């Protein structure tokens, strides 16, 4: 009996230690979440200096976003920029991860390369974007280099062409994120039972066969995890295009992302619209998060 009482007395501490997290999460996350949803049902914006609303208008903001067309354009931009970054990223990361995890390759300098490829992930995205903006400016060093070695006759205006602007955004994201993906995939590959590789080797499989017949199928859960988390990150794309295009998403708003759109509404104090847009994004990310949750199957192998 005494022991039981002790355990209960100690377990009270579980709640006590949770207080800071719960209080802070409630104030800084749950309340904003609920009020964001609440604001989405109101007409509430500034028209010039005149404050319109707040008037309850039900789902009108949601309807306006669905019929206005802008949201889908920006969703398209966001997804396109994500795909342009994700496809080369996953190919590169799979190859590099395979080399790093393959014991037969025995790459001596692997720790150095891992350190190098992960580094851009920690760089301030806004500063990196500003750097690209100056490097690829009409009078910037890249243009002067390209002209001097004769690839272009005159400076190419990277920032006023749709394709080149998008490519710059995708390249920056690729540089910043492929190292992270490589390390995750490598960890996944290292987790595969080594006996499988040995057995394949004994059977005379080439490393290409091993990669496609063993590594890739067994890696599928991690690949899906990487893809979904990358997509969640991709939908949040903001810093890089915001700084590169100075918030305009130009040329012709072709690199305007959803969060840039949200940011615009927040700055112009159109609370109703930004609320509705936030809720749409919340629903999408919640669905994607749930998939991640299920893949990882957290809790199922929890200790107790």
């Amino acid at each position: 009996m005494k022991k039981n009482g002790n355990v209960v007395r100690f377990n009270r501490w579980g709640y006590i230690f949770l207080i800071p997290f719960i209080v802070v999460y409630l104030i800084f996350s749950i309340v904003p979440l609920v009020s964001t949803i609440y604001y989405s049902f109101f007409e509430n914006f500034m028209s010039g200096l005149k404050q319109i609303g707040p008037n309850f208008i039900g789902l009108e903001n949601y309807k306006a976003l669905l019929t206005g067309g802008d949201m889908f354009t920006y969703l398209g931009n966001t997804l396109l920029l994500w795909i342009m970054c994700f496809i080369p990223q996953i190919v590169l990361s799979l190859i590099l991860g395979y080399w790093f995890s393959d014991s037969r390759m025995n790459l001596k300098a692997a720790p150095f390369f891992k350190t190098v490829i992960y580094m851009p992930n920690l760089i301030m995205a806004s500063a990196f974007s500003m750097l690209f903006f100056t490097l690829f400016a009409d009078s910037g060093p890249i243009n002067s280099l390209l002209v001097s070695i004769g690839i272009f006759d005159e400076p190419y205006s990277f920032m006023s062409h749709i394709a080149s602007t998008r490519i710059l955004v995708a390249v920056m994201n690729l540089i910043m994120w492929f190292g992270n993906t490589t390390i995750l995939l490598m960890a996944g590959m290292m987790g595969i039972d080594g006996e499988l590789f040995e057995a394949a080797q004994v059977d005379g499989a080439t490393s290409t066969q091993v990669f496609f017949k063993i590594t890739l199928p067994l890696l599928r859960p991690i690949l899906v995890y990487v893809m979904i988390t990358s997509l969640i990150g991709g939908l949040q794309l903001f810093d890089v295009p915001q700084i590169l295009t100075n918030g305009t998403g130009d040329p012709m708003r072709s690199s305007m992302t959803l969060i840039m759109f949200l940011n615009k509404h927040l700055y112009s104090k159109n609370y109703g619209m930004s609320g509705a847009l936030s809720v749409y994004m919340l629903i999408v990310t919640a669905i994607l998060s749930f998939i991640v949750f299920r893949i990882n199957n957290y809790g199922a192998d929890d200790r107790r």
Partner: protein
Amino acid sequence: MQGKDLDKGLGIKTRRTIAYVVLGIVTFFCLCWFYILFINATRSHGELAEGFTAIPSTHLFENFANLQAGTLPIWNGMINSIIIAGLTAALSVYFSAMTAFALHAYEFKLRKPIFTFILMVMMIPTQVTALGFVRLMDNMHLKDTFIPLIVPGIAAPAVFFYMKQYMEGSLPLSLLEAARIDGSGEFRTFNTIVMPLMKPAVAVQAIFAFTTSWNNYFTPALILETDKKKTLPILIAQLRAADWLKFDMGQVYVMIAFSIFPVIVVYIILSKYIVGGVALGSVKG
């Protein structure tokens, strides 16, 4: 047996050579930007206008002095960034470890639901609740202060998750029993026994929390209004928004370098721990 590799597909030596060549190219594309940044930060506006060279010049300190004398409050930006990122990192690792400890070491009714809840909300981005967040801070008169940028770090689900994963592997419950028998209170046990044991995890997560906060642009830009309170990413955005051709380009490069290099230096010193720690927090192995 030995010859098998050579017979089927490419030989191991060839493959290794290909790997090194590809890795060399990849390394070049990761690092060349920072090299150009460094070179250009040392060159004067006039030299920059002449085109690119790969050799550093001598104007680094001159550019920096000019930048300091200019209108951008860079030292304020630097100090603000350090204060916000430093405190966020400290609060984040300490309280996340505490939350993880609560769910790791104690048995109580809501234990499982709370754990599941935190994991479910882990991926939800802060941007989607930014509207409510900014308006709430406005109502609480916390706008244009550092509090909305620092205090939320206490409840960081991703940091919590990492700490929890780490505890599963390295914090035996018998240790807590022993501490209890020695008469140590639970709070003291956490501070003097658990936290020291968590040092490697704390180090990795402190760096991540610091850089995330240091690099954050979206939320601070919505919260901070006074020029002297702004953080480095906001100043970078201002630099971009200004008619940049009027600027001395040497200064622009120094400003970018000024925001990037502190993190690179810390990374180079601690990279061993960081790279090793990346995988633990995300994929369940």
